[in-house]
């Protein structure tokens, strides 16, 4: 590693921040929860999780929180994911596939437009996330 100049240090800082933002950021624009109960995993939730991760990585997004939770109770419609945009009501998507994930991610997470086709329903409460 050659010696840094000040500009290079700042660039390095930017990159390092992206690698570690998870540890600090509490202020997310959106939160994606993949439901990963035994039922979800059996139905392919891992793939869904990976698909979301890839989307985040590919677009280098740091203001969206991706997390998992246990079974949401509707095992027959797994894999499921809940998407919460800050200030809006959470939306549950069901019967997901990686392709659907892509669309949902682009339209809903990035665009803010709910993909009604895949959505199970929209919650009434609003999230503070």
């Amino acid at each position: 590693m050659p010696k840094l100049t000040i500009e290079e240090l700042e660039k390095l800082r930017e990159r390092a921040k992206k690698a570690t933002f998870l540890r600090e950021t509490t202020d997310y624009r959106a939160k994606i929860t993949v439901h990963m109960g035994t039922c979800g995993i059996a139905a392919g939730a891992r793939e869904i999780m990976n698909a979301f991760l890839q989307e985040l990585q590919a677009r280098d997004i740091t203001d969206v929180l991706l997390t998992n939770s246990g079974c949401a109770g509707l095992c027959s419609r797994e894999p499921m994911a809940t998407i919460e945009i800050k200030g809006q009501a959470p939306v549950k998507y069901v019967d997901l596939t990686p392709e659907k994930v892509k669309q949902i991610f682009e339209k809903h997470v990035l665009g803010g437009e709910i993909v009604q086709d895949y959505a199970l329903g929209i919650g009434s409460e609003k999230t503070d996330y």
Partner: protein
Amino acid sequence: MEEKTTPTRYRLHLMVCAGTACVSNRSFEIKEALEKELKKQGLENEVLVVTTGCNGFCERGPLLVVQPGNIFYQQLTVKDIPYLVEEHFLKGRPVQKLMYTPPEEKKPIPVLNDIDFFKKQVLIALRNRGLIDPEKIEDYIARDGYRALVKALTQMTPEEIIEEIKKSGLRGRGGAGFPTGLKWEFVRLASPANGGLKYLVCNGDEGDPGAFMDRSILEADPHSVIEGMVIGAKAIGAQQGYVYIRNEYPLALKRLTLALEQAREYGLLGKDILGTGFDFDIKVARGAGAFVCGEETALLASIEGRLGEPRPRPPYPAQRGLYGQPTCINNVETWANVPVIINRGAEWFSKIGTKTSKGTKVFSLVGKINNTGLVEVPMGITLREIIFEIGGGIPGGKEFKAVQTGGPSGGCIPKEKLDLPIDYESLTEAGSMMGSGGMVVMDEDTCMVDVAKYFLSFTQDESCGKCTPCREGTKAMLDILERITKGEGTEEDLQLLEDLAVSIKETALCGLGKTAPNPVLTTLRYFRDEYLTHIRDKKCPAHVCRDLNVYTIDEKICLEVGHGCDVCRRNCASEAIIGEKNQPHRIIQEKCIKCGVCYDVCKFGAVKVD
């Protein structure tokens, strides 16, 4: 430099504490188990395991904090890992049984920030604790590391840096609390002899029993110390720095050495730092663990390879220090504070704390307290807040008796002073001192004479032996305390003890000697009765001083409750207990060696100690 692709995106960062306390609780095994288990579950690309420096809540180690979310897992064992990985990291169900439950409560607290221990802390010196891997410079840089350095090197003159530090009100965290900016100014204005260099030293020789602030900072965030030192070097005009660190801190030594290498590699140390033309490098000097080497002149002598003993001041190191040159010597914690002050400004810093003592102070909270560990609190916080809110009070529902601050040089503060706001002046006023931040909590089972004896035996043992009062005086005081705890003390002894303590405090050569009588002086001041009980009644109220204990068996309880179980007799090594099964037992006092075994083995409370 080649641009790298965006870093791998993980879903979770698992921050495993790898401070010395957790390491000795096998946290590295936890880490390995985690990695193994994650791989098994195919999560290695989703979940990242990070080793961090000391989290502070050492009582509960090994610790794991899950990010995002700040979920706090504690007292982990390797056996817990497969379950934890599957449940939480795979299935998203946080594991409650591994979370922290405060004593006398039922419900666990999942999030770190909600735990009392962490709630009241204000992190400046420990700002990166649990958030970075100390062995990765990138992690430090991500947390605004070396930003203050850039500012100091490019936007500030040395005078401005010193002015900023002066305005911040930062005072030496090593004990005496000398204003840091003023010290820097002295060194800046001093001219080196014979065209030599000025030196800058980081005092990492932490010797107080039960104190581990410096170790923790060096282990958790070595770069913050390095950055502080480079800024200091710029301010005073030094080109060579030393970190004096105990060789018995292998982990801190390793991480510091690694950090220095990384900083050098990145051009943050050495020649032409960040292309600004400023040269400064740091060497590591390892100490052999003599307490007196924490005294600055002894420390400098030790770096020079001479006998580690203090020399009279003046001249102060700022005038004639290392190799006879002006030397700025500050404690680890002080250096770690510097980058933050430069980054956030003196004004911000000086808002924290009291009128005379600004910022925060790291304390190591140990002794009879629920939450032992490392805490960083703002100056001005009361002892009560630290002990009862952060520290969670005294275990076993026992009564708080005193807190010993400032290590062997400090004094014991009784419960009447619990509401004392902590700063340099108030502690000195109370007969103790800030010291480097040791805080030993004592409960009702503690004998204050014994405590004084303990600390004095430590200073007596660690005295370099150079000056008469410290060498001979501490020994003489210890002899008196020995006599008192054996029931052989007289009231003249007490007078002599007090005279000695005052005289040593007044005439000893260095800080070690001058403060060595503090534990005796404060216990005499606040717990004189206890001394008198030892002397007059030949009794130790806390039953700690064994020679003063008298063991007896309550024959009624022995017979009626215990039915003369005979366990005590069988366990008595000196055959001092007579009695047969189903009969009451009795202790022959002449034979009793006061070992206390009978007291410990009696299940019925028939053995009494007085």
